[in-house]
């Protein structure tokens, strides 16, 4: 029973500070200290957010973005873990692909849009493929590293006890690499959100990024703030939600990517 008051006593600043900031902002915009054209009052933004939610605009854009994230992440995860495992297991494949990946990886994902639009017809598929690129590389890298960092002695012990190919893979290599794979997936999901919003800003007419950009172009500043809030909320849900999921599903697995 004492846990809650103590938590509150330790973290009261973290709760009080945003509330205070919002109140000051509200007051400053209301009195004209901040220009309400650029910094509308938080209460006004909240009203606009409610309106966007009530007339369904927000949900349809949100659904579009979530669908894209879902497809792109699935694609990146399946390919990334698959190729990452293969690269971890076979040295020749790793040596061959490493330089290719090293050149492609630092290229900002938005730039792949033109390239992808040459390969597939423009539209949803092009957006999803572009979104998947960065996450794919991230997941592949992390998975490869996960296989590579497994203690040689563990593998040798397993070999001595007669574990071969499939069994070695499922009993030793996969569990050993799992913490890294999970970290890769978590980071990859975060990047999927980041990239999807950027791609939507660049080229889409639907989705949260597009809503933000269109609101800017017609200077609906309150809608901009409201959309930004939803994007931030989505980001928090994805990253902290996945971290919580790991604690539940793989409680023995440490998260290795927090630095």
């Amino acid at each position: 029973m004492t846990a809650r008051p103590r938590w509150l006593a330790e973290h009261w600043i973290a709760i009080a500070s945003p509330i205070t900031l919002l109140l000051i902002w509200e007051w400053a915009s209301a009195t004209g200290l901040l220009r309400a054209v650029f910094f509308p009052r938080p209460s006004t933004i909240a009203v606009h957010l409610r309106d966007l939610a009530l007339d369904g605009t927000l949900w349809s854009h949100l659904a579009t973005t979530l669908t894209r994230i879902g497809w792109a992440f699935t694609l990146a995860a399946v390919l990334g873990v698959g190729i990452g495992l293969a690269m971890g297991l076979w040295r020749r494949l790793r040596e061959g692909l490493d330089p290719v990946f090293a050149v492609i990886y630092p290229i900002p994902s938005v730039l792949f849009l033109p390239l992808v639009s040459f390969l597939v017809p423009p539209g949803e598929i092009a957006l999803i493929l572009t979104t998947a690129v960065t996450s794919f590389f991230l997941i592949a890298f992390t998975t490869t590293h996960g296989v590579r960092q497994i203690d040689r002695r563990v593998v040798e012990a397993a070999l001595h006890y007669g574990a071969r190919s499939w069994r070695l893979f499922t009993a030793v290599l996969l569990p050993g690499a799992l913490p890294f794979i999970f970290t890769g997936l978590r980071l990859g999901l975060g990047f999927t959100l980041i990239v999807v919003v950027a791609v939507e800003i660049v080229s889409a007419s639907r989705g949260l990024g597009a809503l933000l950009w269109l609101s800017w172009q017609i200077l609906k500043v309150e809608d901009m703030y409201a959309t930004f809030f939803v994007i931030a909320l989505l980001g928090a849900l994805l990253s902290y939600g996945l971290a919580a999921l790991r604690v539940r599903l793989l409680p023995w697995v440490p998260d290795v990517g927090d630095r």
Partner: protein
Amino acid sequence: MSVAVPAAMLIGWELCARLAIVSPRYFPPPTLVAWTLVNRLIAGDLGGDLLVTLTRLAFAFVLAAGPAVCLGLLMGMARPVRELVEPYIAFILPVPKIALLPFLLIILGVGEPAFVLTGASSAFFQIVISTLAGVQTMDPRLIEVGKNYGAHGARLFWKVILPASLPAIFTGLRLGLGLSLVTLVAVEFVAAKSGLGHLVYRHWQMLSTPEMYAAFALVGALGLGLTRGLRALQARVLSWQDEIEL
């Protein structure tokens, strides 16, 4: 292998384009791209855009680095500061920083300050959390030993806390620079009228694909060069620390 595979891919692409197995209009042969790249660099217009992007990157990075390292150190050492700032960092961190661009555009107007600040913001948050992690994960025994030997206040900071967090700060700076480049190029792609990102966009719209791929390759080379260069620098400067990194 590490030479053979990329070489085979390039040769395969070259052949496919030359024999028109893939459309050379969309996928021009790599030799043509390389030729265009060299020509454009000699003509100077590609170099101009490269310089614009580099200048923006330099401003963004310098603007972000100092304040971010200070804030990260402060947050690591003073709990109230951490409690005060953490909610905002946690709120903004998972958001694509390019989403800040429209806000900066209405506040500052369309122009360099808005572009540069958007690039700076992505470096800023990365450097803050890396620095904070550096201070938080340092061995507490180091501080105790320092105190036992009479180091307090400023002396403890300069002799113990700062050196111990340097590897993490450096990692933050390196990641921050990379993120800053990514954001800036994306910003150029959507909003600016110059820079490598804009170049890719413009040549995409005009379907002048050799130029597009040339700019594309230059961005890749820039990213790779910065990452590799800073990694080598880090290994040199902080040679006593081996870094655990993905």
